[in-house]
């Protein structure tokens, strides 16, 4: 069976076929969820953001430029949704302080992460969370999604030169952060 192209599915969705949009969700839910997860760390937040990103995409589908790649457009939406949540969370953080829930969650996560790789994954994720959000976004798109400088530039709407400088700076910062956690220190 020939797989339908993204453009065809977008077209069908615009004609009122929601199942076509369902196919796009199926196709891109994994990368979209992973971008959200690496930006936010929390599974539940990542699922909320991924959901919000698909809903936004659906609402704005008539503005999608068919000359663009659908996945680039989707990445842009999910990164923006994640950045919005981070800003919003900062704003409301004071109402969540002192509950002890976050501490308990973190302790549970640590307990569950018995395997060495899981511990390391968690340390890398913690390292990512120490980066500035604009640096984190380029690292996520480059290293977890394997995108080129040009694609990241298109998604984040910044010049390629800025992508490179953010990426290189982010790696250097991450190198120091991970070294503190005992990962990758040489010499």
């Amino acid at each position, binding site marked *: 069976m020939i797989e339908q192209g993204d453009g065809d599915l977008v077209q069908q969705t615009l004609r009122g076929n929601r199942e076509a949009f369902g196919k796009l969700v199926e196709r891109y839910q994994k990368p979209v969820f992973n971008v959200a997860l690496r930006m936010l760390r929390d599974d539940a*937040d990542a699922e909320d953001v991924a*959901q*919000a990103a698909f809903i936004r995409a659906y609402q704005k589908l008539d503005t999608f430029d068919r000359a663009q790649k659908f996945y680039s457009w989707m990445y842009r939406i999910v990164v923006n949704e994640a950045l919005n949540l981070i800003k919003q969370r900062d704003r409301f953080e004071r109402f969540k302080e002192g509950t002890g829930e976050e501490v308990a969650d973190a302790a549970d996560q640590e307990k569950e992460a018995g395997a060495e790789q899981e511990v390391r994954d968690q340390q890398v994720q913690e390292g990512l969370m120490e980066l500035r959000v604009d640096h984190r976004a380029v690292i996520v798109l480059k290293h977890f999604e394997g995108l080129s400088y040009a694609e990241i530039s298109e998604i984040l709407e910044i010049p390629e030169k800025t992508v490179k400088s953010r990426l290189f700076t982010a790696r250097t910062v991450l190198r120091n952060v991970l070294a503190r956690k005992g990962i990758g220190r040489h010499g």
Partner: protein
Amino acid sequence: MVDERIVELLNKEIDGVILPAERVILEEYRATNPEVEVMAAELRAVASALADVGQVEAPSTLKGRVMRQLNLQPRQQVPLADRLLSPVWEFFRGASGVRLAYAFSLGLVAGIALFALYIGSRDQQTFQPTDATGALILGSSAGRVEVGPVVPISSGQIKGAIGTQFTNTLTILNIKLTSPGALHAQVTFDPSVLTVRAIQRGSEGETGLAAHGNTVEIQSSGNDDYTIYFLRKSPAPGPVRVALFAANDLVFERNITVSQPVQ
């Protein structure tokens, strides 16, 4: 301290985009500066640590959540211009220059004629949370404050409104009251779903009031503005009952079911 230009070349090497001439420069520098190799190894370790973090599967509930929320949206109105031009676009797509020129001319004429209709139909696509079923439906746009419906309060001379706002984790009720006499407001909720994070009076900041069990009690002088911030523990429906008493008589009662169209 490694030269900035060399750091850039090291990063390009990691990304596999280093040019042959740049590689020569890097190798020369590397041969005489051992600290470059240390840095290269550390950057490679960072890249490797990131590469080792595997992709995780999306939650099995995600697609269902998206599709359920789409079903709660007003039916998307396909812009008339799109509907009319779509077959034309399909026909001309990828065709020769002459056909493209026809397509352009046709598109221009049709575009001008349909512009007004297009703008009109776009306005119908804006999603607003609705109160169609008596339940407040969360927009669930993570990260933003969604403004929900306003529930009016009207009982004799007692007037006011309960405003609702949501973020992806907070449910916020704003109770505004105007009354000739003192009132006692009682807000009850399901503590397995909601936790009271803060209660604010007007713009004065937190009141120090707290929930006792599943109830928040507020003594109002009659003209007040209270905002209660609830943290949602789960997406399950979280019913909130707002009741107002004047001299122990129940003068207003409203059950508000806060539900999120997920799971």
